[in-house]
């Protein structure tokens, strides 16, 4: 028994020694762990005095452990009440809590820190203090502040953008209202315009028709708007207009359209172009019923007057002829001279009356009435032959250049075409001085689709400033007025109408003092047949 006690004591002492060594190892371990731990940690006792700190804590606060241990925890914080309250709340509520505070270092530098507190309890659960982990969040806070600044800046930018957008929206709204106002104005103008208006979009769908146009064709906006030009054929009142415009809405300038007995309108199309893009077509309908009526009355008057004048003039002509032929007895030489002059004047008067009658027929639209299939070359030759004597007498060379190949026969009003050529040749002979030359050329163009005639003279030419008016009624150039009193000024007007009535074109090139060349072309057969369908 005595032996057993020392053995037991020895065992207990060994165990104690072992426990002591373990405890010391543990202390060393904790010290090393604490030393290398980058996070600042301090132990705080219940009355909130710092009782231990690690190396990182000393580095962060600038206090040595000997300086700070034993000091109240709130010494190192700006927010003294808050840190104490925070610890109290942590103790009451338990668990680990985090709070951001400002640490005041030994050098009185203020460092933003994040405090994490853990409440310490012993094995029995008794509260024995706190562990505090203090994390320097200067950089995080700087980053956060920068981020917040950036967010604030961005917010300001966004606010500015928003304001700018609002301003823009207001401007846009204002512009929209202005545009709306302008649109209303335009619509009001369009609605109150005396001319009829039709607007087709780029796909040739009718997008607008004004009230005047509605009246012209007795249609309603809601019925016709949105229809394509093809679909508008369904409306009987619009059919003539659609036929005139064509499916592609061709370019038309002041084309007359008789809508009814009491309504004639002049149709013009205007392409609506923005930059290089065509976005639609405007069809302008101008009521010319009154003008047509006045014109008709005028034409009827001229026609009537001309007819009334021609009868007595014919009687005078035949009487004078009889006198000149001696049917009424011998006349003296002197008397013959006077009667011949009177006869020539009477002839001019008759020609003028004939021209006036032609013009009235042209204006009445009943001029072309005998279209027949003819050999054009023969028609030209006939007229050329009739001027052979006169050109010889005037010592003017007259040349007729015929085509190398035979021309196709074309449908023409021979009498009228002959008159047209005659008018041109007559002018050439009349205004070409002695020794001059007149060249008539006939040729086929566009692979036989057209026949072109040109009459070139070496005459006086047409002054440049008067060339625009050459085809108007009663035009006579100033230079020819000075040298020649004959001529009604209607010949080229009649000629132009004859050529255009055949679907052809007429033009000229002239230089005063050097001569003039008149050209006209007439389409062959098919084109002309199509053309005739329009009448």
């Amino acid at each position, binding site marked *: 028994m005595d032996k057993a006690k020392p053995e037991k004591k020895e065992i207990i002492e060994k165990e104690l020694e072992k426990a002591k060594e373990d405890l*010391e190892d543990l202390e060393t371990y904790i010290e090393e762990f604490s030393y290398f731990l980058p996070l600042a940690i301090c132990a705080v*006792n219940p009355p909130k005095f710092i009782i231990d700190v690690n190396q990182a804590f000393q580095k962060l606060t600038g206090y040595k452990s000997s300086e700070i241990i034993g000091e109240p925890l709130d010494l190192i914080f700006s927010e003294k009440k808050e840190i104490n309250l925070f610890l109290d709340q942590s103790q009451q509520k338990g668990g680990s809590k985090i709070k951001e505070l400002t640490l005041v270092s030994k050098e009185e530098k203020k460092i933003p820190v994040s405090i994490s507190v853990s409440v310490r309890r012993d094995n029995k659960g008794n509260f024995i203090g706190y562990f505090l982990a203090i994390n320097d969040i200067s950089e995080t806070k700087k980053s956060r502040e920068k981020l917040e600044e950036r967010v604030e800046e961005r917010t300001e930018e966004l606010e500015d953008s928003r304001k700018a957008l609002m301003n823009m929206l207001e401007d846009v709204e204002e512009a929209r209202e202005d545009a709306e106002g302008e649109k209303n104005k335009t619509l009001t103008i369009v609605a109150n315009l005396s001319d009829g208006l039709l607007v087709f979009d780029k796909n040739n769908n009718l997008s607008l028709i004004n009230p005047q146009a509605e009246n012209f064709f007795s249609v309603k906006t809601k019925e016709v708007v949105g229809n394509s030009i093809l679909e508008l054929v369904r409306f009987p009142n619009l059919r003539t207009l659609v036929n005139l415009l064509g499916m592609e809405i061709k370019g038309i300038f002041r084309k007359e359209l008789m809508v009814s007995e009491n309504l004639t309108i002049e149709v013009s199309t205007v392409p609506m172009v923005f930059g290089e893009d065509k976005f639609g077509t405007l069809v302008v309908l101008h009521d010319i019923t009154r003008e047509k009526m006045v014109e008709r009355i005028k034409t009827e008057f001229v026609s009537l007057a001309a007819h009334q004048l021609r009868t007595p003039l014919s009687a005078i002509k035949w009487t004078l002829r009889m006198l000149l032929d001696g049917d009424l007895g011998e006349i003296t030489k002197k008397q013959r001279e006077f009667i011949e002059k009177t006869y020539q004047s009477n002839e001019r008067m008759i020609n003028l009356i004939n021209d006036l009658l032609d013009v009235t027929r042209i204006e009445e639209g009943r001029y072309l009435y005998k279209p027949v299939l003819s050999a054009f070359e023969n028609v030209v030759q006939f007229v050329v032959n009739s001027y052979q004597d006169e050109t010889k007498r005037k010592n003017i060379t007259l040349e007729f250049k015929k085509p190398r190949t035979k021309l196709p026969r074309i449908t023409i009003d021979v009498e009228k075409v002959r008159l047209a050529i005659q008018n041109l040749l007559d002018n050439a002979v009349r205004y070409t001085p002695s020794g001059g030359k007149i060249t008539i050329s006939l040729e086929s163009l566009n692979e036989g689709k057209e026949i072109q005639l040109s009459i070139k003279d070496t005459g006086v030419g047409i002054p440049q400033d008067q060339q625009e008016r050459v085809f108007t009624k009663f035009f006579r150039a100033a230079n020819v007025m000075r040298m020649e009193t004959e001529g009604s000024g209607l010949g080229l007007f009649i000629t132009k109408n004859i050529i255009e009535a055949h679907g052809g074109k007429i033009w000229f090139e002239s230089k005063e003092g050097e001569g003039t060349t008149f050209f006209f072309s007439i389409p062959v057969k098919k084109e002309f047949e199509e053309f005739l369908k329009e009448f």
Partner: protein
Amino acid sequence: MDKLSLKEEADRLMQVKGNVRGAVFQTHAAYIRQREGEKGLTAVERKMEELGYPIKFSEVEPLNWYSEAHTILVILVAKELFNWTDEDIFDMGNTAPKYSFIVKLLMKYFLSPRKTFEMTPKYWEKHYDFGKLEIGEFNEKEKYMSVRIKGYKTHPIVCIFHRGYFLRMCQYVIKSKDITMEETKCVFRGDPYHEYVARWK
């Protein structure tokens, strides 16, 4: 009476019986290192060796028992080597708990002034294998308390050290910047025990 030489004092001190935890050596070493650097610590070790009572601070284990006479001699050597005053010794005592591993372990008793006061004897027992610390009065209303150390007569310099030490213990638990610690009774002044009275405002 002529002042004793350090050697004489050392030899005389060694007559004191009783042991103390190695943690006390470590807190002394920490304070010397803090004040005088590593060289200062080496100088103390050298002087101790010269006096015939060598000590290697790095080899001290905190929970082992060592002669209290040695720990007191370290204080005396440092005082002489570095010309420390009593104030320095007081500060050494006041700083010691900050470095003590044992103090850290005992912190769980430092819940409140009263609890700390009540646990003081236990605290003594953890450090010393001789002498006894008894609680005196604790008057929270009047703001004072007292403790007594009995059976402990080593060297008067320890009285200064302990005054600083006990003050720190109070500073750990009393939230006042104005705490005083006074040794009201001392065996070296003929009293039967040491008595320390803390007062605060």
